[in-house]
């Protein structure tokens, strides 16, 4: 059955040896990143199963409490109050048996990227006038950038810096609250609890399914990469690699479309007719009502402080 050339076996061993050859490729690193995400999801899931303070609360009470705190925090302009609320989130992460260092890292990893980019320009007198704190450059009189005229010297202003710090701190506090919610609630329960704030059932179901299929598609991508690795004898050029990545993106899209059709058919064959019924077994206890009341009261106090009705 097999052709002659296929019955040849080369029993000579390689004269070469395995040595370290430096950096990993871009695609390989990206796939590693994907695996890192899976690992992170795994760790988050393990936090939500611990027997901590926030884990023991009803997800609906937790969702509404945290949303109230976030709303109030976004109105606060006093740095000391913001630091106090941020410290509270750290305390709650500790009481919920979440590794505080992990929690801080998780929050501050994204703050410089998003809040930082927005906040940095406002520290300079170019955008926001104020008292000079530190001179960055002297441009001389009549300086301009295209049609925009620039001040004589560019400096960091006291007011600008304070506003930037307050803005960053506010974002950090709000993100911490959200991260705390995500870490202490299993994903599917968190999505289901969105019903309490009026999110329609269909969206909740879509979220639940999307979250489940992300993992399936990620696994598919990882396997495709590994299968290509197994067949790559010598590295190919950049264009070939890009072709492969482009082809795989297209294929993943085709696969996900055909999978969504099949999933829909499977749902229909099990009685789905467009009307969604989600299993919800939440039960509010006294402590959940109490936690909700405390959080809403705190938010109210914060709103009063922000409106200068209460002074600290």
């Amino acid at each position: 059955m097999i052709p002659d050339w296929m019955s040849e076996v080369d029993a000579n061993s390689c004269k070469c040896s395995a040595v370290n050859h430096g950096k990993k490729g871009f695609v390989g690193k990206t796939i590693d990143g994907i695996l890192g995400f899976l690992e992170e999801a795994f760790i988050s899931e393990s936090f939500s199963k611990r027997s901590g303070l926030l884990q023991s609360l009803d997800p609906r009470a937790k969702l509404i409490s945290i949303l109230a705190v976030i709303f109030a925090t976004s109105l606060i302009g006093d740095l000391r109050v913001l630091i106090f609320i941020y410290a509270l989130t750290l305390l709650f992460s500790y009481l919920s048996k979440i590794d505080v260092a992990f929690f801080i890292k998780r929050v501050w990893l994204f703050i410089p990227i998003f809040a930082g980019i927005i906040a940095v320009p406002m520290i300079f007198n170019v955008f926001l006038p104020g008292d000079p704190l530190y001179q960055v450059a002297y441009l001389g009189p009549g300086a301009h950038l295209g049609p925009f005229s620039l001040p004589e010297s560019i400096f960091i202003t006291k007011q600008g810096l304070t506003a930037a710090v307050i803005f960053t701190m506010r974002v950090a506090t709000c993100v911490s609250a959200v991260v705390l919610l995500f870490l202490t609630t299993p994903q599917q329960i968190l999505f289901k609890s969105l019903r309490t704030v009026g999110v329609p059932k269909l969206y909740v179901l879509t979220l639940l399914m999307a979250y489940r299929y992300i993992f399936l598609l990620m696994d598919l991508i990882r396997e495709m990469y590994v299968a290509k690795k197994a067949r790559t004898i010598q590295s190919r050029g950049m264009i070939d690699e890009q072709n492969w990545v482009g082809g795989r993106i297209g294929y993943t899209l085709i696969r996900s479309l055909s999978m969504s059709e099949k999933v829909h058919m499977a749902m229909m064959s099990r009685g789905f007719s467009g009307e969604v019924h989600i299993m919800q077994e939440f039960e509010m206890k006294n402590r959940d009502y109490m936690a909700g009341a405390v959080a809403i009261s705190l938010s109210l106090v914060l709103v009063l402080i922000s409106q200068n009705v209460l002074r600290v």
Partner: protein
Amino acid sequence: MKMQAKMEAIFDLRNVSYSYVGKIDALKDVTLKINRGEKVTIIGSNGCGKSTLLAILDGLVYPSSGDFYAFDNLITEDVFDAIKDNEFRSYFRTKVGFVFQNSDVQLFSPTVYEEIAFGPLQLNLSMDVVKSRVEDVMEMMEIGKLRDRSPHTLSGGEKKKVCIATVLVNNPDVLLLDEPSAGLDPRTQLWLIELLQELGHAGKTVITATHDLEIIDQISDRSIVMGEDHSVKMDRDSESVLSDYELLLSSNLVHEHTHLHGKLVHEHLHVHGKEHTHHTNQDQKK
């Protein structure tokens, strides 16, 4: 020209363990050697670590602990995942071919013809040799009529055949196959067994992960039984593994309602309370 296979270890695993995301164990303390020209099956129930073991043997994942040597070289991530080409990795990838369980992940070219030509094109062979190899393999696999089809439009059995073709066209000396008979119709399954036997006779090293007990003694001389605790439970000749009913039962490879007829294992549907007997004198009298 056939070469006499030398009895030397090409793969050597020393206390290899592997766990996914550092938590889910897939392999535990596996120590084994595989010699050149051996025909080996790795058997075990679902999720016992067969696929992970094959992936380690192909240098696709790396042990979480322990060492894996292939062709007398320690295989590490630094060697295999580097951006730069290196001679050993090319040698390894030329020598070892892997047929994946999920055919879909292995096929990425626009047509079946290009898919099969992908491998030999990387071997720096002349275009004529590449073309004749591709033709030979397509004829051997009886997939000539699929030549211009896009791989994702093929049926499950056709995809599997194309996958095997893409690997064989490189003429690797070592073949790793992950559940190759799964989802194949009986005729294609028999054809696959004959192909693996012929490759084995030619001196290739054929390592197959499967839980299809019926093909084991036809395609292998040695069987490695993986237990449900992800460690090697038994490593012996295939015939004696197949005749060890207790071992197969404890490894979840047979069910207590599975019947053994000599070496042959098969299952019957039955209703409790009316268990049947096989070829007893009473049956014959009836």
